[in-house]
């Protein structure tokens, strides 16, 4: 068991450009079933051995794809996500950076009446180590196991996965939810999936300054938590009013401070690591209890 993706996941690539084709190849290397890609006007041909389709609906009909990964550049990313949702894809993972907030508000409004789960945009994707990778993460840092992992950041996810793996703590599923203010699967929803997953024994929640997703995740775990969790918040030293790279990582007024997030986790009985290097130790201690 795992959440979102497993060895039966059938992936369609939207945006088979330079980045898309590079990562499609690496996903295939990992063993992920990449069953097709969309390229309007090129339907019926192939690229790098991947069958091309004019539309997502057509690709779903011919390949039974249940997941799509979006590399389409920001100006057209909303269209790509909506096309996948319209075609009834179960899981859409959007890697694209820089999607306008107004576009994401429309996409999430459509999601309210759809069955699709959207992960991202502006994240590294998701991986169920040993089964499937739908994302851009370097797979060698991940290993199969029981730690569920939710993160708003990309490289920090690799860093922490590497630390967990070195400490002998494999992962059930790692979900990079994305660094934008409006995303498809916010941290609390991703935490809920892992909390309900029998294969996940402990949850690592990696947050950032900005917004209140971590506070809501802490509140959810306080009320419904079935397994131990450990948290880390990046940006504790960031000054207010400065956007730290991610559009979502900004403290405005008294909203989104690291203190508020740390307090929320501590009140929920979830230990908060001061540095990524402390996470494996805290996970081991939490699992022993």
């Amino acid at each position: 068991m795992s959440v979102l993706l497993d060895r039966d996941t059938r992936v369609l690539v939207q945006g088979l450009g330079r980045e898309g084709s590079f990562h499609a190849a690496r996903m295939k290397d990992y063993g992920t079933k990449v069953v097709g890609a969309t390229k309007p006007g090129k339907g019926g041909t192939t690229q790098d051995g991947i069958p091309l389709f004019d539309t997502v609906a057509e690709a779903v009909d011919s390949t039974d794809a249940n997941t799509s990964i979006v590399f389409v550049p920001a100006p057209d990313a909303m269209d790509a996500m909506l096309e996948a949702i319209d075609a009834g894809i179960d899981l859409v993972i959007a890697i694209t950076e820089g999607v306008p907030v107004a576009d994401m508000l429309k996409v999430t409004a459509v999601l309210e009446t759809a069955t699709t789960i959207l992960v991202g945009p502006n994240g590294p994707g998701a991986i169920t180590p040993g089964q499937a990778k739908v994302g851009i993460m370097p797979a060698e840092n991940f290993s199969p196991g029981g730690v569920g992992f939710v993160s708003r950041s990309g490289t920090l996810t690799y860093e922490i996965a590497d630390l967990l793996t070195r400490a002998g703590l494999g992962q059930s599923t790692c979900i990079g939810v994305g660094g934008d203010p409006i995303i498809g699967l916010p941290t609390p929803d991703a935490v809920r999936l892992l909390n309900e997953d029998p294969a996940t024994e402990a949850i690592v929640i990696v947050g950032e300054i900005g917004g209140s997703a971590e506070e809501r995740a802490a509140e959810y775990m306080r009320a419904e938590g079935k397994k131990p969790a450990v948290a880390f918040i990046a940006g504790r030293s960031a000054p207010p009013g400065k956007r730290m790279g991610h559009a979502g990582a900004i403290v405005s007024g008294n909203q989104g401070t690291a203190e508020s997030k740390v307090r929320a986790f501590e009140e929920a009985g979830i230990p908060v690591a001061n540095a990524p290097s402390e996470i494996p130790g805290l996970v081991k201690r939490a699992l022993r209890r």
Partner: protein
Amino acid sequence: MKLHEFQAKQLLARAGIPIPDGRIATTADEAEAAARAIDAPVAVKAQVHVGGRGKAGGIKVAKSPAEARDAAKAILGMEIKGLRVEKVYVERAAQVDRELYLGVTPDRDRRRPVVMLSTVGGMDIEEVAATNPEKIARGWPSPLLGLLPFEARSLVFAAGVSEKQRDPVADIARRLYSVYVETDASLAEINPLFVQKDGSVLAGDAKLDVDDNALFRQPELAKLKEVSKDDETEEKARALGFSYVQLDGDVGIIGNGAGLVMATLDAVRDAGGKAANFLDVGGGAKEEVVRSALEIVLANPRVRSVLINIFGGITRGDEVARGVLDVIRTHPPRVPLVIRLSGTEAEAGRRLLAGAPLGSRETMDDAAAEAVRLATQPVRA
């Protein structure tokens, strides 16, 4: 990206929202002429991209063109929170009876736009939200439908707007919402929204922040972008494809990925130091990008050591090493460098760097501690 009040007001006026008669001036002469043309008492208002300009003396009321001239003379050239005032907006003074608040912004938690209306205007809305949250009426329109007439009506009732102003305020709310949508704003705000003594409603101030990610489809607004001296480095970095934020410490930071760079900043603080900047080279940075990142960080005179923290995914350790070596070879840095390479091609990168005059560490924590230690050493001659 922030717009000035006068620019925001032009957009409001175009959408049919009443604004006071006003003119922009860059000299005292122009301000006097503007006041003469308006032919009534005026407010002379500094146009700068910071809040709190009233408290800083950036707004003055003038009863005559001569007074407007003096006011402009006093305000033009003054510094408000480090920003020099280059323009004033000369505007007919309103006959204010009451002040309301009206604003639209995305609500991250609900994932919808939120429209806020309050009869406690003129104040910092965050302050009102903290002390009297019941004084702010909120509505969450569907981004697919926009602010519907019934939603605007519900807002004016919930906020307790007086009977005479209900219709005009509901109408202004719907118009402001359309400005918010059409300009791809991350904030559209009228604060205060004046109710004048004769009962009419008028935008007293206007704030419009545009989503930087949407500027590609807002060419008219993109032209209004002003780069202040403080932001020059940030702009230069953006043009090179990475994000840079100036901070006030002395340990220069370069990393890949926003979260990792933030965690690096925190590690520096935990080691007792202070970061001079945030710099994310982004994914897949090549040799040249690393070189220019290092040059930008080293150009900050406060920097006393530089910490490079790379966890390679798409970014390759050998590319990073080559960029760093190039800088060391061509312009030997005046401060010590510490590097931590991990992930893709990190081994190759470390091999390239062997023997180079810089500290290499295995972990982020060790590298941060070393960079902080070096920042406290005397600068090499």
